[in-house]
């Protein structure tokens, strides 16, 4: 268990290569957008990061349900891993989004459904981590964490819907008729770059996820050994 499995080592290298390839595609392959210019290039990684954040969010909610149903510690470790990764990637998505929004919307931030939902998600994740920090008993920590991710998983879609009742300005670039403010139609090269970025970040997500779950398992073993040493 101390040595990284071969498949994981392969994934490490593959992720690095893929990210480099995606960067190359964003910079050299994708054409310059006519109206927005260079700043539009942030869009590819922005979408990919938000996608990974979503993956983590869904994984966390399901891990919560699985833990409550089975009481298997494995699901608790999966849940924490998903939350931590999702927290970071949503933060990157928010930061890249702001970089894009400032020249295009003329503001760093607006209370649009997606932006607000992303911000609320970050708050829920931080609350989740604070909650776990305040509990020593590992069993209770896992139970409370699972209940809280479940509550968050139900509340966040409602938050999204409730803000959607206001008007939105966030562009729906993929499969949406409404362009929003700063929407644009993509050329095939742009589409390729975007889908490739999403694929790349999915691989990065799997790699990080694997590392984090492995770390969780090791931490659990350390805790067990400590308890044994104290007896």
């Amino acid at each position, binding site marked *: 268990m101390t040595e990284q499995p071969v498949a994981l080592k392969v994934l490490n290298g593959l992720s690095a290569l893929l990210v480099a390839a995606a960067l190359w595609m964003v910079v050299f392959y994708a054409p310059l957008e006519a109206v927005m210019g260079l700043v539009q290039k942030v869009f590819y990684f922005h979408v990919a990061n938000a996608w990974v954040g979503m993956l983590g969010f869904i994984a966390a909610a399901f891990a919560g349900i699985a833990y*409550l149903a089975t009481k298997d510690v494995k699901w608790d470790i999966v849940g924490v891993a998903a939350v931590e990764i999702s927290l970071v990637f949503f933060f990157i998505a928010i930061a890249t989004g702001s970089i894009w929004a400032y020249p295009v919307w003329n503001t760093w931030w607006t209370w649009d459904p997606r932006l607000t939902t992303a911000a*609320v998600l970050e*708050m*829920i994740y*931080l*609350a989740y981590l*604070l*909650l776990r*920090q*305040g*509990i*020593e008993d590992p069993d*209770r920590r896992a*139970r*409370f964490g*699972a*209940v*809280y991710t*479940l*509550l*968050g998983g*139900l*509340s966040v879609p*409602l*938050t999204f*819907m*409730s*803000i959607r*009742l206001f008007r939105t300005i966030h562009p729906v670039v993929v499969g949406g008729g409404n362009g929003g403010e700063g929407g644009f139609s993509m050329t095939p090269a742009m589409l390729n770059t975007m889908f490739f970025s999403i694929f790349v970040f999915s691989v990065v997500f799997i790699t990080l996820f694997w590392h984090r779950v492995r770390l969780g398992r090791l931490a659990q073993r350390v805790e067990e050994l400590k308890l044994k040493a104290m007896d």
Partner: protein
Amino acid sequence: MKKWSRPVKDFLRATRAVAWKDLAAELRSRELLSAMLVFALLVILIFNFALELDVKTRRSVTSGVLWATFIFAGTLGLNRSMAVEKDRGCLDGLLLAPVDRAAIYFGKAISNLVFMLIVEMIVLPIYSVLYNVSLFEPRLLGVILLGSVGYTAVGTLLAAMSVQTRTRDVLLPILLFPVVIPVAIAAVKASGGILQAWPMEDIMPWINLLLVYDVIFISVAFMVFDYVVEE
């Protein structure tokens, strides 16, 4: 009542007993209600100076000020009602009682709701007098009831969780606020709409959202409360 089966009757009796215990204790001490009430009035006082509640802005911000007040005062009550159980070891006693644990949850939630409604019913006329706006509109009272139900349903569950952590009362608002954002948005919008005499079809979506939230979160809390109090 007669045609209900025996388990249902037992459940209702247990719920009523837990709720009545809290209400009777409060009736004698009046610790919690007076603290919530004074706190609510202080929040309004602060808003008065923070927002310059003059005649023109008053119309649009009244619902926001009211709900912020209710939400802050509500946290105080939720925290206290669970802390009392924990401190004097009452929670363990309650859990030992041979009743369904969901009955304990519903009993606590009902007493919390009653406290919140009492505070709201005192704050509303005071606000009406202070700012010369009539808040006695049956639909507004309905929205306040729906919003308070959703707030206490989640709040009671999370208070039961936060009271068992190291950080205790500090943690409750951090856990609660991001999860009740849909309630806050829908309740503020619906009350604001009613106060500004919007047509009913513009208000209905918000009321529906409140209903959906209440139903979902009451059922989820009912299902997961066992995991929260389990030893």
